[in-house]
């Protein structure tokens, strides 16, 4: 029934199918030693790729027949706030950019602040220092007490 067809579920099922095909193609391209011709390092990848393809087809049938009950299909009108999701993504990208040079503490503070913004906390003067404190204590506990090597950074050098 075309009226129940949700483009989202069809896209997800096709993505699963493509993953399965990708797994098989990648495995075929990998060089293998003939010594392990029978049950070598490619047996499981082939099996998993084949199963993913089969599941992708079954998912497609579910999507096609509109038998896929999930939040995305039950509440299609309520769209996800992509701005909020984007802010969390931005937090991660900022952390990835900062962590090498500025160090863990500042990177984690950026992640924290952007994530609180995503949740609607606009008082940055409150959330940023709080994030800094949390990152600082996390660093102290894990790097100083537990000996995790969390790298160098601007703040880390002062400790």
């Amino acid at each position, binding site marked *: 029934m075309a009226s129940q067809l949700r483009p989202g579920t069809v896209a997800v099922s096709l993505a699963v199918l493509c993953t399965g095909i990708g*797994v098989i193609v990648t495995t075929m391209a990998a060089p293998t030693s003939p010594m392990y011709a029978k049950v070598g*390092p490619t047996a499981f990848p082939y099996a998993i790729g084949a199963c993913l393809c089969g599941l992708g087809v079954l998912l497609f049938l579910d999507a096609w027949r509109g038998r*896929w009950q999930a939040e995305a299909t039950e509440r299609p009108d309520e769209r996800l706030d992509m701005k*909020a999701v984007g802010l*969390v993504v931005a937090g991660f990208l900022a952390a990835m950019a900062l962590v090498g040079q500025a160090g863990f503490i500042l990177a984690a503070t950026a992640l924290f602040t952007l994530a*609180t913004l995503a*949740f609607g906390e606009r008082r940055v003067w409150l959330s940023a220092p709080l994030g800094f404190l949390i990152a600082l204590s*996390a660093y102290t506990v*894990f790097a100083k007490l537990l000996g995790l090597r969390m790298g160098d950074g601007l703040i880390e050098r002062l400790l």
Partner: protein
Amino acid sequence: MDAFADLANGFAQALTPITLLWCMVGVTLGTAVGVLPGLGPALTIALLLPITFKVEAANALILFAGIYFGAMFGGSTTSILINTPGESATIVTALEGHKMARRGRGGPALATAAIGSFVAGTFGVLGITFLAPVIVDFALKFGPPEYFALMVVAFVAVSAVLGDSRVRGLTSLFLGLLFGLVGIDLQTGQARFTFGQPELLDGIDVIVITVGLFAVGETFYLAGRHWMGRDEIVPVAGSLWMSKEDWSRSWKGWIRGTLIGFPIGAMPAGGAEVPTLLSYYMERRLSKKPEEFGHGAIEGVAGPEAANNAAAAGVLVPMLTLGLPTSATAAIMLSALQSYNINPGPMLLKTHGDLVWTLIASLYVANVMLLVLNLPLIGLWVKVLKVPKPYLFAGILVFAMVGTYGVSRSVFDLGLLLGVGVLGLLMRLYDFPTAPVIIGLILGPLAEQEFRRAMITSQGDLTVFATRPLAAGLLVAALLLLVLPPLIRRWFTSRRTGEAALEG
């Protein structure tokens, strides 16, 4: 009895101040994360995996086990007071428990849940004590084909039996298996699915997948849905003490729930959802006041809560004796063992017997601690719910960063975490279960290893799985698990519509 002497040694170890302290930290942390909706024991343990670099194995495992048990306790509190079950196994508790709280009987509801959990937990740990050596003796006879078959049973059970859709459950499982393939193949040294990235040669870290799916994905989802967590908390009114009637209506439920929960949890096809539901229906059928069900019947809290905790203890049986995790939390505890280079499996009890028995003894201790700690401190746990959600989830992301970047110091891993988080969001929106991913990721490489071992000894002859009776039986069981549940469900619905027709 050998087991008792070993257990006594375990207690001697478990009652040392340091061990008690780890246990205490575990149950406290566990209760806190159990109370908070959206946080579970699997995520908490994954975030704490970095401590395995520094803390010795026994203490780390005791901490994790404390978190596991504590989260069960905490989850019931949330179910009763705000009607948002922290995890699927406490959905049933919310059914009657929240109604009780609304009628001003929150105190007795919390009490029967706590005492029921204690009773079930204690019996469950006793069950582990007796059952573990027996299963180990049996399992020592297993060869690679049997192990592989057993893992197939576990795979099918966790992905196809629970949840709404077998197809989606299996898709999750195979995604997990695929993640497990990434990295250098141990037997041949060949790199698989690394796409030339040196960071991927060691495989994808369990922490990245777990934290990505459970913490980052959940944060995306809640931020996108503007979920600010303004849940209405029903204040705990009245006395915490249960009346004489409450006791007499509860204790049978505790016992029955334990008897249902432990065996089902201990099966390789375990899980806590099925026994809690079974217990609920059983209590409703056996209750002298069935009319109260749906309006806050205390039996409906006592039975399922006991079943839930007994199953949680039961899950540790296949984990400790066979190295077979049947829940996401157990899978992560298994990977903690691996990070100590301890091979889980039937040899565990022989090679690291002291560790296992200390862990079991600590579980007894954890149960007592939870009972003593939780009932009087219930007001404190309710306050945990008032942590502002923006700070809570942003804080979790900081710890997610510690667990990934702090371990590998690789920006690549942070990017991977982000990617897995997006995957987690999609899985949440399209209703794919996440636990099978974790189990596939951790158990998949072990299953492949057993399969290839079996193939080496049989010289590539696949019939070895059919000619060895136990392996064949297990594979048939796996097939039945895959095929039977929908048939049973159909039978039940047709019967129910038949009943409805008769009544109508």
